[in-house]
């Protein structure tokens, strides 16, 4: 993978690496893609197995479920007057 492609990938991943970490991870990524390429050894046209077992699509009732511990939920956020604070969009 060339540097431009790697940097593009980092941007998509929203990851920032320092110089040493970038060098190390870039080398590993190239080596691991080489390992992935072993799958070229086998041809296969079976339907993809998204799960290891058959799973029927299941729908649940479209209804409101009450969760009565808002305080516990909000403990995991920064809040302002019970609104969750988040970054600008």
């Amino acid at each position, binding site marked *: 993978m060339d540097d431009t492609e790697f940097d593009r990938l980092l941007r998509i991943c929203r990851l920032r690496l320092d110089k040493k970490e970038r060098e190390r991870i870039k080398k590993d990524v190239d080596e691991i893609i080489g390992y992935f390429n072993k799958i070229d050894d086998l041809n296969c046209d079976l339907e993809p197995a998204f799960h290891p077992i058959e799973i029927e699509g299941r729908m649940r009732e479209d209804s409101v479920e009450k969760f009565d511990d808002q305080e516990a939920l909000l403990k995991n956020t*920064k809040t302002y007057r019970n609104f969750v604070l988040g970054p600008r969009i």
Partner: protein
Amino acid sequence: MEEEGYIADFNGIEKPGDYFHRLRDEIQNYNEKFHAFNFIPEKLEEGFPFSVKDNICVKGVETTASSRILSGYLPPFDATVVRRVKEKGFSFIGKTNMDEFGFGSFGINTDISARNPFDEDRVAGGSSSGAAVATALIKYHIAIAESTGGSISNPASFCGVVGFTPTYGAVSRYGLIDYANSLDKIGLMARSVKDIEFVFDIMKGKDEHDSTSVDRKIENKKSRKITVIDEMISGVDEDIRKSFDSLLGKLEAQGYKISHTSLKEIGISGPVYYIISMAEASTNLAKFSGFKYGLKVEDFSLDYNTFFTNARDAFGEEAKRRIILGTFVRAASVRARYYQKALSLRALLIRKMREILKDSYILSPTMPIKAPKIKDVEKLTPVQNYMLDILTIPPNLCGFPHISFPYDYIDGLPIGAQVITDHFNDKALFSFVEDWENNFTYKFKYNLGEI
């Protein structure tokens, strides 16, 4: 199902009034040395002790999956497995150490590595390192652990305990911090398979909160045939190979018919597994955005991308590697070559392994090496690391239930074998290992909580 094993012993013995107080202190003291736990509660309730891997939610208890990005996260609910076990009167004794998000085979991708109770310079295995160490240390205890590609079998083998990974979907994943949704299975570790069977019966079954959990009868179709796949023993260390041959001899003497076969697809199971697991992990980790769960990026004046990027600085190096690679294999330009092909190859491997499993167990050593020294695994490249998972990946990738059980001790270190059966035939594994336990005594160096 009746209580048996250590659970029955524990419940049948009268305990001193301060038993749970002393047990807590003992665990805390030993944790200074072995680092099995990320969290131990101030006070233990009465009941048979159980621990929970730190990627499974326990209400009101910090749950971090050993990641800085989740530090301080307090789940407002219990995972379904935790709720079911608590309701049966078991006593929660702590959250166990692990590789960050389950990304690792040696328990070293965490702040402080758990130590192997048989030799403190060696790894405990991973990613459920702390669960295996806790089981090897505490006499009366069961560990709720989780496996994606071998995270139960591997540490169970290195620490000399029994590790059970159920059929995919047999146990609810609700409350698990996902690594790879199509591969994650919540399972158990204990000192006896009887305890595992008892607690599995409590945990299993459909859950409305997990759409991939299924309500299928768990069978006990026993077999007297064992198949050894040549590709699963060709790369193991010489001493383990010899010891495994002697295990086959013992099983043959007990009436099992042993046969060997070749399955060349085993060779690609590693890359197939890592492609699928990294693809899924890279999407799962996107939810940690710095303003809910754990770590907070306090500066709300930042634009979203900078804010999000700042939060993701908290991931460890292996997590970053997997996000990058998982994002790569899902890219439109290469998706068919990697991700989609890996899913097709998983279907092929399931088909091929099921042909063997229809009337036979598959048996192999659990790991190709003995528990290595911590300083040695730190030198491995990621690919060298991933290749050591070659024996635990096939059943995990295909969702087949499997158990690792101790069967030998080489140079004072425990060695495990892994027995695999067909989907939803989990109970046959319990029968197989129970037969083994009737003829073999496991060794433990520590018995915390002994009465």
